[in-house]
């Protein structure tokens, strides 16, 4: 479970990026976080990854207060969270298989397990046939699938996706969304930051709208505050 209690974050003197945010996301939920650029969405993601510390309040994941996690325990904590970015962030000098395998090598999985696990993940995202391709030989949608496979290969509890469809055309965006929904249906909590309002409307999931660092609406079924 993800829980934010009175969380504020300001980078320097001026308006805070997040201001007194209270939020709860239950296990297995699928949540959209929407808002304009500069609304504080990315700050929220970075707080959840413990890349940033809140200026005030506390962030909890699975009952653990992130502020109390020591530097040494950070790798273990991050393995429980898969993350996907707008720009895919694949390693360009490695092929699809190695990009996904990388995540397992990093956590010290034995090779025998990697050889079993990676093809499984790749077939789940529909890229089993392209395991030897390099990122630049793939379309944007395919690259994002690789990134998702990498995020999921270590079986995280939570998948954070920061504008996962931002660089994709409509068709590819939908493919990715379907994939995320499927992942969610297997029990992984999925949090998607996006400004693709069309997708948000159609998917009919919980939508949290952030504006200037505060949550302005939190609706169960794909409605959101889009007055401007």
């Amino acid at each position, binding site marked *: 479970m993800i829980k934010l209690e009175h969380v504020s974050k300001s980078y320097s003197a001026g308006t805070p990026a997040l201001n007194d945010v209270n939020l709860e996301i239950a296990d297995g939920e699928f949540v959209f976080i929407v808002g304009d650029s500069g609304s504080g969405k990315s700050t929220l993601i970075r707080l959840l990854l413990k890349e940033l510390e809140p200026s005030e309040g506390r962030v909890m994941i699975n009952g653990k207060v992130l502020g109390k996690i020591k530097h040494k325990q950070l790798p273990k904590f991050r393995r429980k969270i898969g993350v996907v970015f707008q720009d895919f962030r694949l390693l360009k000098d490695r092929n699809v298989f190695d990009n996904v395998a990388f995540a397992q090598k*990093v956590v010290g999985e034995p090779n025998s397990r990697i050889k079993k696990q990676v093809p499984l993940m790749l077939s789940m995202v529909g890229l089993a046939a392209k395991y030897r391709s390099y990122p630049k030989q793939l379309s944007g949608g395919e690259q994002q699938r690789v990134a998702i496979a990498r995020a999921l290969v270590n079986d995280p509890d939570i998948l954070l996706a920061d504008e996962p469809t931002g660089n994709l055309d409509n068709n590819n965006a939908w493919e990715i969304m379907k994939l995320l929904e499927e992942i969610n249906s297997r029990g992984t909590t999925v949090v998607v930051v996006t400004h693709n309002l069309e997708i948000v409307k159609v998917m009919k999931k919980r939508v949290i709208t952030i504006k200037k660092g505060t949550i302005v609406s939190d609706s169960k079924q794909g409605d959101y505050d889009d007055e401007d």
Partner: protein
Amino acid sequence: MTMRINTFFYSIKQGIKNIFRNKMFSLASIATMAACIFLFGLFYIVIVSFNSTVRSIEEGVSVTVFFDKGISDAEMTEIGKKLQAREEVSKIEFISAEQAWKDYKKIYFEGREELAQGFTENPLANSAHYQVYLKDVSKQEQLVREIKAIAGVREVKDSTQVANTLTDFNHLIGYVSAGMILILLCVAVFLISNTITVGISVRREEIAIMKLIGATDYLVRAPFVVEGVIIGLIGAAIPLVVLYFMYQKIIVYIADKFNFIGSMISFMPVHSVFETLIPISVALGAGIGLLGSIITIRKHLRV
């Protein structure tokens, strides 16, 4: 943290990949490292050769101990025992008055032995003496002072001047080369650190991804340490090979062309020089690589 063998090999592999990934900087580092170790080796050989030259000269440096007139043979033997028992003494030689006269005649009346016939008595009757050889020339002054105090000793002739000059010169060479090597090592550390910095900036994105995926500090850092150590080791291996063949050639060449130098310097045999030079250089190369990479990681890779 329990480190798996898998992660260990991963680090080694990545470290090697790093070296190839920024070839130019790696080459520059290896070259500098090689130059450093080469100079170090050169100094080492010079110092070792000089030391062995000094030692062979030192071995010839002796203190001559003369006795009081009318001293008995037993007393002389007693003094001899006392001298031999001293720690700093390597060996003593007894030269009897007869032997001294014989040696003298050999040097000065060679070919004109009839001139020496004029002496009916041994003119060097009071010249029986001990030649005392020291293990360490620098202790000569002290020794002379103490021998003079022994009863029955008339005079002690030493070669303080030679001993002091040799010792001082030896120290000077030691200090100068230590200083130069130290400077070179600093340059090598700096260059390796530079290479690692470039490596880190090239891989910045990868490092960021690794951290997000949950890589431990160890896994993020280890490849760079491996890179530094490998550069150090290659940098040490190249000059060792060059020096090995050079040294062999030079010994032969000098002995051949410059006989007088060859007779002045006593070169150590190749294997005994390299027996020490190889482990020192390898340790130095690996050490500098380690130091350079660790300093850089501390500075640029705050994970």
